[in-house]
């Protein structure tokens, strides 16, 4: 993709070298003036300057002016990471009147001053890096970005509140959205909640209208009970395969009347109801909850007597007056093309069994916070009645915060929502039972609008707050009044005493962790995970919903623990980023693609086997390789493999790299 | 203007000089103080610590007496002022207090409707005659005297009706008005420990030490205060404090009304200056505010521009 006005080898190379102080970020560890002086001695360097902030308007103008005044045709900027300001300085270079790709950045901050202990060696290292940059920039040639059309549709993966919000925002902006959800219904975790903190809005009341809107929106194709199985392509042009699992129900016919559920040959539930986190059993044919979207039943083939090959009365079939049951249904794979992808795959809660001394699974009256969410919901399995497993209404409840969180043995991070969720549950449990509520916390974290005020309200209402990480939940009584109770042993670090608090019910505020298959999903979309396993954003502050892969955005807890308001805001941001990508209708591609120097190509086809994108084909007539620049993503693997040296890569050509290697090592 | 004067117990004994000087100043400024008949102890911190019902009744009773006379109540003692003010507020804010107090007062045929104000001399003098009027009457400016105003707790806390709780200025303004220089120091509102002076003197003295030290670091010649308990605590135990903290020097602790009276031309004896434990006359003489006693007998007072009797 060498442009017409490419570098003329005969032209005299005139390099401008600019080194940034970055305030004291660089200048405190690197003698920038000395590096500038050194750079001036390098062949081709016409002007060399240091400046306080190169990225400032004044710093950029310095480059623009020097290009004009000194007839510069190459620019080297020694400053921060190119991830931050490469675009800034390329633009400045262009403003100066020369091709932006004649500018090269040397990263002396992230790779230099910030990791250096000693000023002298750091300065020497910076000189070497500067020399490397100057060495390679001599070989730079003018390049042009190319434009690619962007498909005007978006895939949203995950139908929780994040996916719902993103999908609606995009759909309302006129883009077509494919919303893919793994479960039989959208709604995600939020649909399982009773109230939302700190306003105590009814979760269903605020969520279900949005769910129905998704279900009926003309711009949204909703595929629940479906999973993305493959994704390929590039920004603006992704090809995605979605597996739509068999519901064994004709979706067009089912009205959600639930007659089939009623008439199932199993008279009661036979398997743990996932939506109610196992508090009750469900039948093989079921709907997760009455407001499910789509409002269609689903048959679980593993437990359905007919589908699992057992004997069955098949009483469900005649019960459906629309003949919607279809036991012959098989899964289908849909192929779609989208311009952008929003990943909103959510989280899972920490498995409380991993902390055995809290007794979950051993003591029947130890519950997880999610179980209590279902229990306090009036539409939940107990219709809002909070009872222990033996039917007693608890007189005292202990809520254990930070279960699995802030713990190097399990999850190191703070799950961020559990403090507030626990306060909400404390409020609801007190409201439902009048029980004494004990909160056991390490730190109370209430950073949000109205959150601290909610905490204060709970304090004032006489809930107990005991600061200390619970050591154990035990049924070993040391006092008569502890008999037949679960005893929570903890040091109240504020009163300075080890305390034993006997309660009827223990609630474990389980933390948020990445979905079990997060690493599969991330490979599907070619994105990274941070240490904990949450998807990695491009920049924690300035690109929080973008990923390293252009056109793939993040929303919600798949990127890290967050509450509903933050999730909705982030989903909106992800939708806005997708819109910004889609709306111009085209995208500019970096020019670092590979191309074949026809005269040198022997037609050996080695490169063809190397290219992961099938971008290289063989011109049978000319017996040479041909690279399709639309498909080439610029990895350079073919370049490295070409035995004839016939393949070049823009910006990373052999000679550029050989010179960089030589020069970066030249300074002793 | 007539005021209901509530001296409180201290102004009748350890704080006599405060009463003497305050009344002298009032006389010069034309403020009429009529001592309440049959007033009773405000209760201080003690009543509140023993029985809260009677504590509030005792406090509010005095307010009811003044209200009956339709006069604002003037309480020079910082302790009394704070206690009465708080009782007034809590009477308004807490039904439990109101219920108890009303029943108690009814036994004497009294009632309280919160129709009067509770005044402290510091604020009274600043507002009612006003600083301008005071300045015009100065006969003996306190020129060259560097004064550290010590406010203590009760004018400022828990409610501070007339000053900035964290950086009080009223007393400083009064002192400036009569020509003194101000020693600015941070401890001006810290507790002097007076409540413990009689029971755990060691702790009280540690607190007092810090105040004196801080004032002396600000190069104060004297300390002034508007509370008899503070004055007593700062004045009476300096021997013991200096014995354990030799880095402080003796410093006279005046009632602010004493220096005010002096500036307005009253004689030291009228103002009870001789009653200080750490003598205060000497520094006043050194600064030329008061003449040498012997010289005084020979000629007219030296105070600049002052004509005295």
């Amino acid at each position, binding site marked *: 993709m060498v442009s017409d006005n490419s570098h003329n080898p005969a032209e005299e190379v005139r390099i401008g070298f600019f080194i940034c102080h970055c305030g004291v970020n660089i200048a405190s560890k690197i003698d920038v003036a000395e590096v500038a002086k050194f750079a001036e001695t390098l062949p081709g360097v016409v002007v060399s300057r240091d400046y306080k902030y190169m990225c400032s308007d004044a710093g950029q103008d310095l480059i623009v002016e020097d290009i004009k005044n000194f007839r510069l045709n190459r620019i080297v900027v020694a400053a921060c990471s190119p991830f931050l300001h490469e675009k800034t300085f390329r633009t400045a270079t262009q403003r100066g009147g020369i091709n932006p790709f004649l500018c090269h950045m040397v990263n002396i901050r992230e790779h230099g001053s910030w990791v250096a202990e000693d000023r002298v060696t750091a300065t020497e290292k910076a000189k070497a890096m500067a020399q490397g940059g100057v060495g390679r920039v001599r070989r730079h040639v003018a390049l042009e970005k190319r434009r690619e059309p962007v498909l005007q549709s978006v895939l949203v993966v995950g139908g929780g509140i994040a996916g719902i919000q993103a999908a609606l925002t995009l759909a309302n902006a006129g883009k077509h959205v494919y919303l893919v959800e793994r479960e039989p219904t959208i709604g995600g975790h939020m649909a399982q909640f009773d109230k939302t903190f700190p306003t105590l809005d009814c979760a269903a009341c605020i969520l279900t209208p949005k769910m129905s809107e998704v279900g009926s929106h003309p711009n949204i194709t909703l595929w629940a009970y479906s999973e993305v199985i493959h994704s390929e392509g590039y920004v603006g042009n992704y090809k995605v395969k979605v597996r739509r699992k068999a519901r064994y129900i004709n979706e067009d016919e089912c009205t959600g009347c639930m007659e089939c559920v009623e008439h199932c040959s199993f008279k009661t539930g036979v398997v743990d109801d996932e939506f109610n986190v196992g508090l009750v059993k469900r039948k093989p044919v079921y709907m997760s909850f009455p407001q499910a979207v789509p409002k269609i039943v689903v048959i679980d083939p593993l437990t359905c007597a007919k589908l699992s090959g057992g004997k069955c009365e098949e009483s469900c079939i005649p019960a459906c007056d629309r003949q919607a049951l279809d036991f012959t249904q098989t899964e289908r794979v849909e192929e779609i093309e989208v311009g952008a992808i929003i990943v909103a795959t959510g989280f899972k809660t920490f498995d409380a069994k991993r902390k055995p001394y809290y007794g979950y699974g051993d003591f029947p009256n130890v519950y997880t916070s999610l179980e209590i969410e279902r229990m306090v919901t009036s539409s939940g399995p107990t219709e809002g009645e909070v009872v222990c497993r033996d039917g007693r209404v608890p007189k005292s409840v202990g809520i254990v915060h930070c279960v699995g969180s802030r713990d190097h043995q399990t999850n190191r991070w703070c799950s961020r929502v559990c403090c507030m969720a626990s306060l909400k549950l404390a409020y609801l449990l007190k409201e439902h039972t009048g029980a*004494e509520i004990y909160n056991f916390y390490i730190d109370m974290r209430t950073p949000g609008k109205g959150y601290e005020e909610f*905490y204060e309200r709970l*304090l004032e209402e*006489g809930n107990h707050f*005991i600061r200390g990480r619970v050591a154990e939940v035990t049924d070993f009584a040391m*006092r008569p009044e*502890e008999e037949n109770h679960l005893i929570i042993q903890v040091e*109240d670090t504020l*009163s300075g005493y*080890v*305390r*034993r608090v006997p309660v009827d019910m223990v609630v474990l505020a389980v933390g948020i962790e990445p979905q079990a298959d997060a690493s599969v999903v991330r490979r599907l979309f070619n994105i990274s995970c941070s240490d904990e396993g949450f998807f990695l954003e491009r920049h924690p502050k300035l690109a929080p919903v973008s990923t390293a892969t252009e056109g793939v955005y993040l929303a919600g807890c798949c990127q890290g623990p967050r509450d509903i308001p933050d999730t909705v805001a982030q989903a909106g941001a992800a939708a806005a980023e997708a819109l910004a990508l889609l709306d111009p209708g085209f995208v500019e591609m970096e020019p670092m693609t590979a191309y074949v120097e026809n005269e040198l190509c022997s037609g050996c086809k080695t490169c063809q086997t190397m290219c992961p994108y099938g971008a290289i084909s063989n011109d049978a007539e000319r017996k040479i390789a041909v690279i399709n620049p639309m498909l080439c993503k610029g990895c350079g693997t073919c370049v490295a493999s070409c035995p004839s040296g016939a393949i070049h890569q823009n910006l990373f050509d052999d000679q550029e790299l050989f010179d960089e290697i030589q020069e970066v090592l030249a300074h002793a | 203007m007539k005021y209901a004067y509530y001296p409180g*117990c201290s102004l*009748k004994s*350890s*704080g*006599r000089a405060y009463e003497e000087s305050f009344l002298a100043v009032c006389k010069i400024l034309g403020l009429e103080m009529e001592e309440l008949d*049959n007033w009773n*102890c405000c209760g*201080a*911190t*003690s*009543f*509140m*610590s*023993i*029985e*809260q*019902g*009677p504590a*509030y*009744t*005792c406090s509010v009773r005095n307010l009811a007496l003044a209200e009956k006379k339709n006069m604002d109540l003037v309480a020079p003692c910082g302790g009394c002022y704070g206690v009465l003010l708080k009782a007034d507020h*809590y009477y308004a804010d807490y039904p*439990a*207090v109101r*219920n108890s107090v009303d*029943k*108690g*007062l009814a*036994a*004497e045929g*009294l009632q309280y409707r919160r129709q009067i104000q509770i005044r402290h001399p510091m604020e009274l003098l600043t507002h009612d005659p006003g600083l301008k009027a005071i300045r015009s009457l100065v006969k003996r400016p306190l020129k060259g005297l560097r004064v550290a105003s010590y406010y203590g*707790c009760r004018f*400022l*806390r*828990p409610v501070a009706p007339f000053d900035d709780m964290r950086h009080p200025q009223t007393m400083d303004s009064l002192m400036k008005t009569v020509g003194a220089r101000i020693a600015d120091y941070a401890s001006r509102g*810290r*507790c002097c420990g*007076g*409540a*413990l002076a*009689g*029971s*755990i003197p060691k*702790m*009280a003295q540690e607190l007092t030490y810090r105040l004196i030290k801080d004032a002396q670091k600000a190069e104060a010649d004297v300390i002034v205060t508007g509370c008899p308990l503070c004055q007593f605590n700062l004045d*009476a*135990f300096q021997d013991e404090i200096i014995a354990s903290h030799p880095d402080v020097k003796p410093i006279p602790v005046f009632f602010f009304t004493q220096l005010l009276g002096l500036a307005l031309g009253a004689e030291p004896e009228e103002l009870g200056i001789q009653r200080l*434990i750490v003598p205060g006359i000497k520094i006043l003489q050194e600064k030329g505010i008061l003449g040498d006693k012997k010289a005084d007998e020979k000629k007219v007072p030296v105070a600049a521009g002052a004509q005295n009797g």
Partner: protein
Amino acid sequence: MATLEREIRFESDRDPEFAAQIRRMPGCENLNRCIQCATCSGICPLSTYMDMTPRRVIQLARDGFKADVLNCNTIWLCASCYQCQVECPKEIGITDVMYALKCKAIEAGIKPKQAAPQTLYREFYNLGTKNGRISEGALMVNTVIKTQPARFWSLKMLGLRLLRTGRFGWKIERMPQQSVLKAAIQATPPINGKESS
């Protein structure tokens, strides 16, 4: 075993009604708001002498550990300077809580380890309610004799000075009509935070 028992606090050590009682006392209604920031302990000029910091007293009081808070010396060392109260970010009447706890300790007949302040308050209360006014001389002599007999003689010089300057007398101060005050006090219902009151 006995030492172990002292380390652990059981639920039976709590008086579940205690915090509610305190909260019904004037100025104490915000007790539960405490976020244990410890501004009170930091700002208190006397907290270094206290066996429990004010923060800890608040925590134990609102959790109902009555015996702990009524037996600590903190409440008696509080000099009522109100610094904690005005700086409390949650507007808890900490000084008022200390008053309430003092009253409760007296109600419970608790004699603190550091007895002097309670003795002084009692002397003061008795004198004040009996005569209607405080006779400072009598109060000081009584308190010093009862609480610091050894110091009595070392204060001799101060006493003489006070006598000489007229600041200290043996006269017993009295209201002209003490009976009215007595009647008022007798007619005053207690404020003790108990629900009936």
